[in-house]
């Protein structure tokens, strides 16, 4: 029987506490054969099993160019994520995937890239950021705008040096600053407005809370960006990841199958049900 619901076994190889409620995990697939053949592309997602609790969907936080482990950054929001946060290095989990589509980098070649991330949304664009940095020559300017509620809510501090080292222009902002915070203070859309990125030959990859996305889109539209230039990844409740269980259905699309990566032109055609 072709049981597509049986996941690959994996063990937790490392855990890093990013913020009070976000941790980054590295998973190592147990079966060497599976490990060898397990390939994904930036933008795709996986379904993680925590035994005793159930499954939940996460995007790959690392790109295919750094595929030693499978990495996810996970915020504690519900039952499964709470249980994942309870796990320790060496604990056994399982995952299935990769599922969904990916960022069409071949289309972005030779362009400027602007990444706009907010909150845990950064987990979804860390992979394309690092992918673009690993294939740096394919792109022109790479700018990363990343904001959190407060300085304490910013993840990936350990990665920033490397990103900047590879000639990415990193702009950090916090809704509310604190002592010692040397970066910007303000909401992501406001900072974006201030940055005035040029629309010419530029693709924007964005992910964040719905309210942020809404205003980022508005700012970008004001700056003259065409909907096709803006790419995001949608978050929907998913169970199967296989285009069957029906809950990520928006119009004729199944986010798990046809997404999660969409450009704004496609999204504009969809009803407001995500």
């Amino acid at each position, binding site marked *: *029987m072709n*049981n597509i619901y049986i996941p690959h076994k994996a063990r937790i190889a490392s855990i890093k506490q990013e913020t009070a409620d976000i941790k980054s995990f590295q998973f190592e697939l147990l079966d060497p054969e599976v490990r060898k053949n397990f390939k994904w592309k930036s933008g795709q997602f996986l379904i993680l099993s925590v035994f005793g609790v159930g*499954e939940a969907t996460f995007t790959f936080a690392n790109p295919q160019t750094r595929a030693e482990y499978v990495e996810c950054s996970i915020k504690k929001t*519900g039952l499964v994520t709470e249980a994942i946060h309870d796990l320790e290095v060496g604990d056994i989990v*399982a995952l299935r995937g990769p599922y969904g589509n990916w960022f069409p980098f071949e289309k972005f070649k030779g362009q400027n890239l602007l990444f706009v991330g907010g909150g845990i949304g950064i987990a979804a664009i860390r992979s394309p950021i690092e992918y673009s940095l690993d294939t740096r020559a394919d792109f022109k300017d790479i700018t990363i705008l990343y904001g959190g509620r407060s300085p304490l809510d910013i993840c990936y501090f350990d990665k920033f040096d490397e990103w900047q080292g590879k000639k990415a222009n990193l702009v950090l902002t916090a809704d509310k600053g604190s002592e010692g915070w040397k970066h910007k203070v303000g909401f992501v859309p406001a900072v974006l407005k201030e940055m005035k990125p040029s629309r010419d030959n530029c693709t924007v990859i964005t992910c964040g809370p719905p309210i942020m996305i809404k205003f980022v889109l508005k700012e970008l539209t004001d700056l003259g960006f065409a909907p096709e230039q803006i790419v995001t990844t949608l978050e929907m*409740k998913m169970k199967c990841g296989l285009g069957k269980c*029906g809950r990520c259905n928006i119009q004729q699309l199944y986010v798990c199958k046809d997404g999660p990566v969409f450009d704004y032109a496609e999204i504009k055609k969809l009803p407001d049900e995500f």
Partner: protein
Amino acid sequence: MANKLITQENLKALVNELAASYDVFAPKRENKNTVSFGKLQSFEEYVSGVLLTNTTAKDKVYLQSEQLFQYELKKDTVEFKEKAPGKEAVIFGGRPCDARGFDVIDKLFNWSGYEDGPYTGGRKNTTIITVSCEKPETTCFCTSFAGGSPADGKGSDILLTPVSGKFLAELLTERGEKLAAKYSKYFSEAGDAETAAKAEFAKAAEAKITKKLDLAAVKKNLDASFDSPYWDTVHLPCVKCGACTYVCPTCYCFDITEKKFGYLNGERNRTWDSCMSEMFTKMAGGHNPRTDTKRRFRQRFMHKFRYHVDNFKEELCTGCGRCIRRCPVGIDIRKVVEEAK
């Protein structure tokens, strides 16, 4: 494929013999008002006259709750155990709309590049023997759909139609032929007369179905009506239970959950889910894209008559009318989609 004949007596004998070696599911009386597909011990239990069993035969293949696998956590690993394949089964006495439902969801479970083993495994294991309907109900509207008819065999392996005191048995699939061959002693050859009689039967039965949806118009209206104020009021009588989805032969949405036994063991289960439920799309953080009842109500009809058509070129509905009859508040799917604008 071949057509055969089987007499009433032989049918009884066949079913009784099948019941000995297969799981035979057929309409069975549960109580005064309830007839559902249940495991048949003998032909006597079969309730022949009922068109609309309370629930469909869907759950005899696509179980309402199905174990996907069991796990056992070991030191440094985990082991999975899959359920042994079930006994071969026969679904007997369902109606063309029930069988058609399987045809519709078969496509879905083989779609998107993934074959859904837990479903297709059971499906391949099941032979569907359907009986044509002579006197359709007021809620029936199968003829609205392409090829839909009270005597249509889509999805069936064998279709039985009463003709001249016997049944014409149309063997529609390999599975159907195999079964008929195995029990060939009960069948005799059918001639053109019987085939013609069947056509007459179908025509007569179809004529009795007065309600026919103009599906092209429905699709067009639904395409345009997503933001229509129509949905603001039409959903009001709906109480948002899941009865319609659970009695539907084509509703396929499901949930995957876990049940644990102690610290180390557990099972992963798949259970039908309903787009009418608030939990269907509610995310862990509390965000719910279809938070209000209007959106959930609209989703059901849009999915069945618009989105699914976009993807599969057919409606997610077979016109059985069960949802109309089983709806506690009498919501009529025909009316809802027809009036959408």
